[in-house]
């Protein structure tokens, strides 16, 4: 926990209310998100018990599996889920633009956004996708044709959710905790109702009181996918027994509804809270990436692409890890550049500083090592009260000029001398406004949005002997339908 986060938490305790730790919203929020609250049967990895989902707070869809251990019912549930979710997803694939690039590609104008209560909701989405994507409409144990398609989509969404800064599938507790610090522990923040209680307690209540009330499982059932043990034993088990005896779904349906409705309301309350924050500058750029990935997957699925393998191959894993690390680096840098409150954390660590420009040597020209012609390399001297922990040679960027790189030349007590290395135009003198002026308040940080080219991995077919050689292609077989847990 950073010093700032610890401070914000201490303040939250004193004020009895969560404290903001961001001034802007660092995730995309769709004008029409789909809230999806899945529940599963206790003790099972991916046996759905029910779900509440929809795009309209006033009209949730309730899906129920009266006997979750019955696999026919399980896949009937998935087909029902697909009937609601697939039209929502596929609607966005229709309107596309063509992006001019070295290889032009298509990108949808907007993309779907699915909100689940917590990271376990994402994990459940991934498992549900895993159990569905290899199933087929023919062969042994056939399922509805929409089941494997939804399985592919759920897999894609859960995969994207691992990328820092992606907003296609979002865990609400994570989204809120990135913008507010509460006076409880990070583990307690995993309880959505308690977290929302800290951020926006009902009238007449403090944050801790609202959070304590939210921990009463009768008044405020868990946000899933796991249900409360008391509910399982006292409400759900008798309801399932009644269904077994009479064939009537009503009692299970009411039981599941009672567990989902409170969370449904909290989810939409959380959406409102996030909507109250202005969007950060970097969000549209990251959402563009989500839109492009969404379109790529939509095209792949529409063309009948095979389901993603059970495991990543050696090359696939390396490529994916590299992409995730780049996304992480870019997200961390962009968040700080977009939000002075996030930048403060870097300033406290000494990786960034803010201060006033006291001297500028605008006319300075040098011949850099290995070059033959003199180029503009102005020096900017900044006075700061921040605890600077930077060394000569570090390359810094500034929120005011995010594309310009400055090199630290000298750090003395309270003074930093920077050399501006680029972003000054092509003229003999730096373009007006491209170099900070005396008196300007500036902020510089040792952050790198990392927009360079990716690491050159070999193709899958070229996997070397050190990593087991080229892997076998996945070929769908009838065995896929017989996996123990699918």
């Amino acid at each position: 926990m950073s010093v700032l986060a610890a401070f914000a938490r201490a303040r939250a305790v004193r004020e009895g209310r969560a404290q903001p730790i961001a001034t802007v919203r660092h995730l995309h929020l769709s004008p029409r998100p789909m809230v999806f609250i899945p529940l599963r049967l206790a003790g099972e990895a991916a046996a759905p018990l029910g779900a509440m989902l929809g795009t309209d707070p006033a009209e949730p869809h309730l899906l129920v599996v009266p006997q979750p251990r019955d696999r026919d019912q399980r896949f009937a549930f998935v087909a029902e889920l697909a009937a609601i979710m697939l039209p929502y997803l596929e609607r966005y694939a229709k309107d596309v633009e063509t992006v001019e690039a070295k290889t032009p590609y298509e990108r949808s104008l907007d993309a779907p956004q699915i909100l689940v209560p917590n990271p376990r909701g994402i994990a459940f989405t991934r498992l549900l996708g895993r159990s569905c994507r290899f199933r087929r409409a023919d062969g042994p144990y056939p399922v509805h044709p929409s089941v494997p398609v939804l399985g592919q989509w759920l897999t894609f969404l859960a995969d994207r959710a691992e990328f820092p800064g992606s907003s296609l599938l979002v865990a609400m507790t994570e989204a809120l905790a990135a913008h507010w610090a509460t006076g409880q522990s990070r583990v307690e923040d995993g309880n959505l109702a308690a977290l929302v209680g800290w951020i926006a307690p009902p009238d007449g209540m403090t944050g801790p009181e609202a959070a304590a009330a939210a921990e009463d499982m009768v008044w405020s059932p868990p946000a899933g996918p796991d249900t409360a043990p008391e509910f399982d034993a006292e409400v759900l088990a008798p309801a399932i027994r009644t269904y077994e005896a009479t064939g009537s779904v009503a009692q299970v349906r009411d039981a599941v509804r009672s567990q989902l409705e409170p969370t449904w309301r909290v989810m939409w309350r959380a959406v409102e809270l996030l909507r109250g924050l202005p969007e950060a500058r970097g969000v549209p750029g990251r959402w563009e990436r989500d839109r492009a990935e969404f379109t790529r997957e939509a095209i792949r699925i529409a063309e009948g692409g095979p389901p993603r393998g059970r495991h990543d191959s050696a090359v696939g894993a390396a490529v994916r890890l590299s992409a995730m690390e780049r996304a992480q680096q870019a997200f961390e840098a962009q968040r700080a550049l977009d939000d002075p409150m996030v930048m403060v954390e870097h300033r406290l660590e000494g990786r960034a500083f803010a201060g006033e420009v006291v001297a500028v040597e605008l006319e300075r020209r040098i011949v850099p090592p290995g070059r033959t012609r003199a180029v503009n390399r102005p020096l900017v001297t900044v006075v700061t009260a921040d605890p600077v922990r930077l060394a000569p040679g570090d390359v810094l960027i500034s929120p005011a000029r995010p594309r310009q790189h400055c090199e630290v030349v000298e750090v003395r007590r309270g003074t930093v001398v920077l050399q501006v290395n680029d972003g000054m135009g092509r003229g003999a003198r730096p373009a007006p406004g491209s170099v900070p002026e005396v008196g300007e308040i500036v902020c510089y940080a040792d952050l790198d949005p990392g927009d360079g080219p990716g690491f050159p991995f070999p193709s899958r077919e070229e996997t070397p002997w050190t990593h087991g050689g080229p892997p076998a292609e996945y070929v769908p077989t009838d065995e896929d339908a017989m996996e123990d847990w699918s």
Partner: protein
Amino acid sequence: MTLTAALAAPPPLALPARAVPDPARAAAEATAAVLADFTGGRHRGVIVDSPPGAGKSTLVVTAARAIADAGEPLMIVAQTNEQVDDLIVRIAAADPRIAVGRLSARGHTPSPRVAALDGVTISHAVDDLAGCAIVVGTADKWAYTKAARFPWAIVDEAYQMRSDKLLPIATLFDRALFVGDPGQLDPFSTVGVDRWAGLSWDPMQSAVAVLARHNPDLPVHRLPVSWRLPASAAPLVSQAFYPDTPFRSGTAAGDRRLELAAGRPDAADRTLDEAAATGWALHELPARHTVRTDAEAVRACARLAARLLARRPVAYDEHGSHPIGPDRVAIGCAHKDQVAAIRAACAAEGVPDGVTVDTANRLQGREYDVTIVLHPLSGRRDATAFHLEAGRLCVLTSRHRHACVVVARAGIPELLDAHPSTGGVHLGVPVKFPDGWEANHAVLDHLARHRVPAVPDGPGR
């Protein structure tokens, strides 16, 4: 694969002067066995596990010369530019006639020590280095090299290389020697996902781990003698961090000695006296939960360094004796903010310039006469996997030739007992030894015998 007779008989090894015959012979035999396996050409890869200071670089240079002498092209992969420069300087010193190429990134400024060498060609394109017998570069740079092919390769610090870095490089060579220290820090990633846990090609693993899992028949050699660690340190480090592959020190008790000028009767000087007499000291501050940059512990580290150098230390070893200057002293810790805080404290305490202050990650592979270590668990309320990692403590406690001083808050054994290691267990992930929790206990248990209680005092005293 046939190779000239030069490779069949490895060149005689330079043995350290005044070495005890037994460890020297053991080390020479191990090296000869490595070279025979590697140059014999029967295996696509040979793995060499080298404990701290066991002559890993000497082995790399010896193997490189053997292949160069046979007229066969060789590529060497190191992990950092500094390691590349180290290797080039050592190869040039061993045989200045060998034409060495340095494969560098575009815009790389050559370090003065490499630029000063005559036989070294520097270029960003491997084609420009075709005339060189040995081409050395970082893993990152080699990854961008296409269409080159070498019959031989040496991968240095292979345990610190993430396995995904090996993917683009492995297509460049026919046979490779993988050399590294399995006890040091594992490579890491800035993203925490367990998506690939249990897969044999998990990119988060080290290059050697992936290589060995896919090629279980590759020979694995171990260098049995640490020339760096004194007789006071080798048994502890071996036992705590290399429980299954013990090694010994090349010198016997009494071969190394540290002399200090008379000190004051305070805790800092008593700590240094203990370290000089026994090779270890635990400078123990009163138990307290602190922030990471614990001001008292940070000041204690700086003061110990200042007092050490002020007492004109002289090191006696198997080569003779030399005064210990600031460049032979290092202060190690776990976090970058601690480094910054200790550097600031060093300036305030008047520690002479030249003392190295760095994190465990950056101290890997380095060697000093005396090290001062801020214990990773000092003052903490919890023991996370990061702070428990055996490799971190191993690096910090195995950089010294004479003595190691550990600065810590009291109460770490109790902290360890309150936080047994309970990392997630994944199917298919090999169990890793040593366990960081156990290694930490072993080191603390030993340090308890060299404990000097310290009452923190203000900057004025």
